[in-house]
């Protein structure tokens, strides 16, 4: 074994197959190897078997699962080891980082102790030495003031910092390999890149091979050396990251890349892949992707294709028709970015401000009273929404973006409550002031304002059939009952579902289909305003594009106005006309999507845009990023001045004298020169004369 050992395979998986009871073949023969210091990204949608691969490698599958093949860690076979033997390897030679850092850390122990415990179990170090090492590790993963914070408990850390602690724990014993299962999925976009950097640095420091399991193609692009794409339990393409992104040869990979909404707007509209992944307990013969493949040939339906080398060395794809995939554009042709005529002809010509406002929110506030100690004393006000104003005109889409906890969902709920805002402000819906509504007026207004929630798995009553779900709004608002069945069929057709879906229960539908049902329910009464709360965030990438297409098409056809709440800036760019960026309960920047994305004026907007990964390894690695520091929950809460200055990169660059303004005064929203509909709340905004 050479001393540096780079390139020698640390983790080797041969022909791994996992079968869950009863007869669900989650993984069907996957092989890969990861060398020392290398990163392999395993990419796939839900149901592709990627998590089963991770669990099989870690030996964490449920007892009755059948696992065959071989998993070797530096030559040692791991499959078939007893749980006790695996426990000695896990956490020492084989480390893991899971998705949810909140549930992976014990809430009752200090994080330093938890890391020290991991060290002591495997190395038998003394308590003092383990503590010292824990502080060292916390420092390595970029936790400021590590010695003090080692004594803090998990709830005193923000999500990003907790994930750093998990990484520190993973590398505590200099593992040979780290298995990371969606390590950044639960984090805000501004933190994802930072956590990945930490993982990379920590992995390099330990010289570990990293197996990165994810659904996010954009994230892997800048992180992995090699990528393995999984579909229906099989590897369908693998190769160097550049080959996969620049020269994909398997139609599924091409489709995945094409369906991603991209911030850099390279190459037009995302294209959805039609259909849904096959059921793993009843796989048809032939290529599992054939039913969704635009270039499937006759032989595709006979036998499942093997992984064969294609193109450059190290690149392999499981496709019979690789000659046809030489030009990806021919497989999933991109339609050029074309703006659908969004509103009625006469409306489009009119200026924005002359159109009717369907929603007008003025100076909305919403506070939560929080108790700072257990005796109920020292009550503080959490300003969830702190003076938000915006309006939406007929036929327009406003994207409301911001990190989790910025108050965007609270704004939505305040609007939907249709009552007098409890902590001040004014909401006008279709010209009616919400404060003056009585029960009947509210019900009448609900007809025109509908909502689609994020998770179609929970927004549809699991006990009801689709037909009953769609009939509910109709029945509620006294739609003639003899016409209801026809209207239900009409709605199903409108959202691209089959008439037969009416008799299904929601569990009988795929995620994309469920979201279509939720959209159909919202449209049943032909509303003029639809509030969309992260409508595609819970969906697979290949399905997202289809739902977004549907939303856009419906808006054009029915003249809807959308309030589109999202955290994904790439999706918002695709859908919205205007965008409002929220930070800590305020809108820091609002304006036309084109203008805001082209030259963001507020430093927070700049940072958000910077953080969105681009699914292109070359571009992604070239990008210089402005990093937003993460504010821990126990940091002193700012009450005066600009609330963003703790994290503001621009503030750091200012002179002491200029900073005084930020410290002292709360910036008010000001318009930007030459753009009437653009507002920004920053003392030193770009493009604003001071």
């Amino acid at each position: 074994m050479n001393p540096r050992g780079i390139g020698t395979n640390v983790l080797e998986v041969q022909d791994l197959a996992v079968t869950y009871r009863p007869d669900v073949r989650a993984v069907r023969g996957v092989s890969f190897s990861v060398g020392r210091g290398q990163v392999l990204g395993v990419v796939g949608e839900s149901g592709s078997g990627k998590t089963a691969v991770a669990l099989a490698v870690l030996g964490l599958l449920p007892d009755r699962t059948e696992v065959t093949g071989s998993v070797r860690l530096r030559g040692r076979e791991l499959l078939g080891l007893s749980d006790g033997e695996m426990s000695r390897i896990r956490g020492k030679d084989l480390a893991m980082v899971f998705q949810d850092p909140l549930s992976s850390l014990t809430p009752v122990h200090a994080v330093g102790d938890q890391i020290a415990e991991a060290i002591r179990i495997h190395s038998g170090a003394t308590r003092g030495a383990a503590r010292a090492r824990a502080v060292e590790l916390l420092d390595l993963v970029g936790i400021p003031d590590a010695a003090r914070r080692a004594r803090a408990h998990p709830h005193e850390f923000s999500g990003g910092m907790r994930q750093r602690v998990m990484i520190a724990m993973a590398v505590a014993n200099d593992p040979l390999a780290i298995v990371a299962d969606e390590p950044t999925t639960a984090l805000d976009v501004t933190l994802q890149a930072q956590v990945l950097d930490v993982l990379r640095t920590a992995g390099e420091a330990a010289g570990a091979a990293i197996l990165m399991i994810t659904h996010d193609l954009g994230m892997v692009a800048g992180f992995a050396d090699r990528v393995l794409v999984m579909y229906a339990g099989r590897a369908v393409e693998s190769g160097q990251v550049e080959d996969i992104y620049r020269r994909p040869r398997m139609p599924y990979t091409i489709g995945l890349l094409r369906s991603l909404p991209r911030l850099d707007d390279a190459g037009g509209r995302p294209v959805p892949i039609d259909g849904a992944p096959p059921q793993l307990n009843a796989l048809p013969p032939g290529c599992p992707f054939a039913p969704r493949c635009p270039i499937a040939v006759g032989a595709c339906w006979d036998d499942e294709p093997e992984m064969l080398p294609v193109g450059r060395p190290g690149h392999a794809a499981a496709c019979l028709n690789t000659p046809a995939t030489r030009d990806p554009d021919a497989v999933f042709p991109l339609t050029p970015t074309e703006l659908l005529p969004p509103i009625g002809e006469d409306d489009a010509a009119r200026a924005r401000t002359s159109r009717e406002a369907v929603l007008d929110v003025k100076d909305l506030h919403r506070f939560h009273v929080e108790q700072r100690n257990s005796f109920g004393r020292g009550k503080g006000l959490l300003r969830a929404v702190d003076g938000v104003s915006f309006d939406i005109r007929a036929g327009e889409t406003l994207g409301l973006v911001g990190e989790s906890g910025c108050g965007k969902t609270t704004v939505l709920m305040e609007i939907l409550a249709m009552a007098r805002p409890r902590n001040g402000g004014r909401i006008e819906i279709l010209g009616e002031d919400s404060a003056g509504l009585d029960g009947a007026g509210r019900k009448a207004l609900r007809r025109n304002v509908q909502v689609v929630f994020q998770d179609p798995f929970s927004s549809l009553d699991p006990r009801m059939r689709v037909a009953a779900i769609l009939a509910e709004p109709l029945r509620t608002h006294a739609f003639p009952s003899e016409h209801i069945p026809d209207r239900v069929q009409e709605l199903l057709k409108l959202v691209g579902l089959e008439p037969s879906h009416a008799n299904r229960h929601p569990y009988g539908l795929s995620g994309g289909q469920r979201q279509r049902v939720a959209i159909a329910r919202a449209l049943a009464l032909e509303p003029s305003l639809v509030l969309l709360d992260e409508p595609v965030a819970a969906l697979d990438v290949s399905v997202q594009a289809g739902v977004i297409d549907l939303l856009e098409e419906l808006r054009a056809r029915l003249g809807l106005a959308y309030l589109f709440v999202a955290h994904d800036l790439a999706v918002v760019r695709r859908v919205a006309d205007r965008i409002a960026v929220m930070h800590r309960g305020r809108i820091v920047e609002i304006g036309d999507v084109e203008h805001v994305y082209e030259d963001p004026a507020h430093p927070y907007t700049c940072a958000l845009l910077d953080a969105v990964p681009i699914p292109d390894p070359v571009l992604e690695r070239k990008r210089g990023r402005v990093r937003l520091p993460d504010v821990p929950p126990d940091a002193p809460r700012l009450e005066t001045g600009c609330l963003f200055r703790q994290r503001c990169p621009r503030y750091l660059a200012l002179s002491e004298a200029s900073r005084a303004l930020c410290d002292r005064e709360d910036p008010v929203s000001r318009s930007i020169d030459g753009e009437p509909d653009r507002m920004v709340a920053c003392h030193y905004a770009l493009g604003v004369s001071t």
Partner: protein
Amino acid sequence: MTGAMRGRPGRGRAIAGAFLLVLLFLLAFAGPLVSPWGWDDIDFTAFLSPPSARHWFGTTQSGRDVFALTLRGMQKSLIIGLSVAVLSTGLAAVVGTVAGYFGGWADRALMWGVDLLLVLPSFLVMAVLSPALGGGWQALVALLAAFLWMVTARMVRGMTVSLREREWVLAARFLGVGATRTIVRHVLPHLASLLLVDAAVNVSVAILAESGLSYFGFGVRPPDTSLGTVIAESRGAATVFPWLFGFAAGLLVLIVLAVNLLADGLRDVLDPQLAASGPSAEAEAEVTADGARAGSGAGSGEPAVEGSAG
């Protein structure tokens, strides 16, 4: 579990339970028609005689026919048990969902009432009130039901509070669906498993409580009879003259078994997610290899109560 696995799981149990219950009702109400003896007839030629062709279940100390007596008791017990169960579970469902869904002062007032009833010595109150209300079996049903629902109501309230925040309930509210309708359509169905199991348990609890009361003379009074009084009267002699006690106790067990089978089966039949194993389901979600999605999909239903099919 043989034929039951086809179609919906739990169907077999529900049908078996319903069938058994119907048989028991038939026995209780049609049985006396074929019996040569009335329940209050006394056969002076046979005291404490064991089961025979003349007296199918034997006779008592005073020469009454045990078969006729047991069936007469079973009529009362069936009616009392079932109506108490329906009444108390229904009351628990109404109070619990209203308190949980509306919250605020309605919640506080109702839960205050629940706590008050919980601390009252129910047996004593029933003993005092039962004669005061005339001593009829209807009064007994009302009293038993009034003291059986509180714990369930608290459970229902707790589950409603969590269901109220579910997105499908929010969605209904934002559609403009009224509160009553939302509770009936979107909250109650998800409590069905709890309520069914609770009702089944209440049947047995009510029958047993009634027999306890009857033993002290506060329940069904002689000359009327119930399974509880039949069993109570045979106490002491049960080991020597098992027919006095065995038939009544066996029928009591059968009633409880039938009701439990029915409730258990119904719970599974009413749960659409359990029916997903049929070939018509095209879901990718529930059978995915990724634990995360399968978990969130299957877990989106109501709090699970494990089936006890085996």
